[in-house]
């Protein structure tokens, strides 16, 4: 509509492994749903939990992680709003974590939603809960799941691991007493798992799962690093459908295999100069989960030739990274050898996980600002979009400090308020108008449509 300008266009094409991703995700939800029919076990917990540990119970153990499920609910707004009503009717404040409320709502309604939006009657109750306490709500979330199920007469045993020991630097060894605090909890957890499931624990499976998780999270970082190329072979909207595998099954071989395939395809796209967005001319990154019901904001950006090449969220939630002495931020390589014993496995995975970027910056805003700055430099980014996400106390933590910090370094920042899982907190029209003003102030105009 407004005056428009012409830019050169890059060739573009859909991802070949797209279907594979779709099916992986679909099967995951259905495997969990039907686990019992195959005599398998179901467990529930967070995407941040040490999912490699329950893997030692056998190959027929399926989980459903809470955050991705909450996001799936959010994506289908009608179902989401039913979930919110149900939790508010139960007396919970509407300001609580939106994923959590979506998840509880699903239990209260006793309905389960699949990735294609199909709503199945009867919420599939897990055999046990295996969680990590990473923010104020993570253990409380499942403590309430337990409580809600109990009201329905179902006992769900719960185990949650406290990881609140801070984060280690990339340049000095982790403090043993902190690592051991977590390792000991995991050891206790394994005994607990054997007790509640009556199964014999298999350390070999544990070692495989741990190694898989480390590979998956390292390879995903490599994929993200490839996106430094101009034009970007991947855009963030696509990456949402790819990083999610890591939130669902980071410890599983399918996940590793998929990320390796993806890495090769992305390399090939770069070789052939294939762009995710043909009109790329302005690169941005975002931060925290997007308002899942409104991914169209990314389409709106493309009208200006602006493409989001990623976010600390997609890079750092699943990807493992480390700082080099020269200050560059690079994928974290695997340790020399795969762990062989239970203790090695636990020590290794704990030391690995404590470096998770999205976890580390919960403790210090400077660290997050620094990592975003590195991404801006290394990924050749023009501006940062900060989602002040009312849905997540964890990832919105310090976000104002990050805006402040980035402004100091002279990086243009566009903050917008919203909610990853509750549309009532997101003002689409208003946000679009502001985004429009932002791009204009950056001297961008809409391209011919």
């Amino acid at each position, binding site marked *: 509509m407004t005056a428009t300008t012409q830019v050169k266009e890059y060739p573009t094409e859909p991802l070949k492994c797209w279907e594979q991703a779709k099916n992986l995700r679909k099967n995951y939800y259905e495997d969990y749903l039907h686990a019992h029919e195959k005599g398998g076990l179901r467990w529930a917990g967070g995407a941040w939990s040490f999912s490699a540990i329950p893997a030692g119970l056998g190959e027929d153990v399926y989980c459903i992680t809470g955050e991705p499920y909450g996001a799936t609910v959010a994506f289908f707004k009608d179902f989401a709003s039913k979930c919110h009503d149900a939790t508010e009717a*139960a*007396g*919970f*404040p509407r*300001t*609580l*974590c939106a994923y*959590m409320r979506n998840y509880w709502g699903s239990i209260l309604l006793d309905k389960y939603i699949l990735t294609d939006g199909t709503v199945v009657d009867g919420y599939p109750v897990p055999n046990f809960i295996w969680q990590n*306490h990473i*923010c*104020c*709500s993570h*253990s*409380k*979330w*499942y*403590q*309430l799941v*337990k*409580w809600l199920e109990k009201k329905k007469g179902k006992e769900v045993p*719960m*185990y*949650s*691991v*406290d990881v*609140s*020991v*801070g984060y280690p630097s990339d340049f000095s060894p982790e403090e043993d*007493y*902190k690592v051991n*605090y977590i390792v*000991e*909890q995991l050891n*206790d957890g394994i005994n607990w798992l054997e007790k509640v499931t009556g199964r014999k624990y298999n350390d070999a499976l544990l070692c495989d799962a741990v190694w898989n998780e480390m590979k998956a999270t390292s390879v995903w970082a490599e994929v993200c690093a490839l996106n430094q190329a101009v034009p970007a072979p991947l855009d963030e909207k696509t990456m949402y459908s790819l990083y999610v595998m890591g939130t669902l099954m980071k410890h599983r071989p399918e996940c590793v295999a998929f990320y390796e395939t993806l890495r090769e395809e992305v390399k090939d796209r770069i070789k052939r100069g294939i762009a995710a967005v043909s009109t790329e001319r302005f690169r941005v990154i975002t931060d925290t989960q997007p308002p899942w019901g409104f991914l169209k904001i990314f389409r709106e950006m493309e009208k200006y030739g602006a493409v989001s090449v990623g976010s600390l969220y997609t890079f750092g939630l699943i990807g493992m990274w480390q700082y080099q002495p020269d200050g560059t931020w690079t994928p974290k390589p695997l340790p020399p050898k795969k762990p062989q014993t239970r203790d090695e496995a636990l020590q290794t995975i704990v030391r690995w996980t404590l470096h998770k970027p999205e976890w580390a910056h*919960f*403790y*210090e*805003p*400077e660290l997050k600002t620094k990592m975003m700055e590195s991404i801006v430099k290394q990924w050749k980014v023009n501006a940062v979009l900060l989602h*002040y996400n*009312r849905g997540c*106390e*964890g990832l*919105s*933590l*310090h*976000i*104002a*400090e990050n*805006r*402040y910090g980035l402004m100091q370094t002279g990086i243009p920042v566009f903050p917008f308020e919203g909610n990853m899982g509750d549309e009532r907190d997101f003002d689409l029209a208003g946000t679009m108008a502001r985004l429009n003003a932002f791009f204009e102030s950056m001297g961008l105009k809409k391209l011919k449509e």
Partner: protein
Amino acid sequence: MINEVFAQFRQWIDNRHEYAKAWKEKTGNRVVGYLCTYVPEEILYAADILPVRILGSHEPPTVTEPYIFAMYCHFCRDCLAQGLKGKFDYLDGIVEGQSCLHLRQTFNAWRLHIPIDYTYYIYVPHGVQTVRAIPYLTQELVKFKQSLEKWTGKNITNQDLDKGIHVMNRNRELMRKVSEYRKTNPPKLTGLEAMEMVLASQMVDKEEHSRLLEQLLQELPNRKLKRRGDIRLMIIGSEDDDRVFMKNVEDLGATFVIDEHCTGTRYFWDNIKEGQEDRLAALASRYVMRVPCPSKDWPEFTRLKHAVQLAQEYGAKGALIIQNKFCDPHGIEIPPLRDALAAVGVQTYPLEFDVTVPWGQFRTRVEAFLEQLTGLEELF
């Protein structure tokens, strides 16, 4: 006399900053602010430091916008606002004992934007229901003690720790004794007086505070407190220093006979076992075993059991559940808390506190709740 004591508490609260400055003047020692009651004040007392709790002012915290997104609780923003406005410019240091993300933000913003000599974050474990928490916290306290020694240049001996532990234990002990007098009908002190007692304790030298508590204990037994109406209420929530609200509610013909607030009984309920060889381990076990903040209270709801017990012991007929808007750990527990109290015949009513409390609206809700408790029986 009693009234003088309570007046003194009030005077300390209203002039807390003057008090702290005068204390520094008088003793030449350091004053350290703390954000959460998980900070072991014992160790600070052992280092001859005066610990004072940082609290807000109940005015819209407009200056905090650049540093804390307004979806975090008004308390954490209000505390930071005080710092940014220079109200706590006399602090030599600030310490946070890990509790919630909200206060962690206040701590970090303070560290980054307010000139201060010393800052320290104690990674107090959340897994307080695991057997691994006490040894881990002990290590954390060892580091904290070392850091204080480095900062103050004072070597903290076991005798110093014993002193610190004793000062805190005695003060908590006395406040528990005073609370006993809330059980009588009518109680010997109001909810507002009880709140002011604890707030004062968090702001002044505990030994001075304890001396007043001892006077109080001598005279409370003979106190005849005139109360209009006899509805016994409990108040439950996170941080709450809203004295105006307490007064307004108690003026409607009710009395708060017990509370479950970290500015109330939760602060002083549990003591430390004295005479242990490993003092820091003894401290660690107190802070792990104490009445927990909901952020640490999982997988079991031990705080709910405690609240129910208090309600019964103190004969509360109803309870107001105060939710500091945006506080997830407390907000999550509202329905379980409601049900647990209902199960023992204690009705509850939830109120959401924001930076300012719209008394006009709350008055109607509270009055209606009180009418509901009495049933206006004789009028039907």
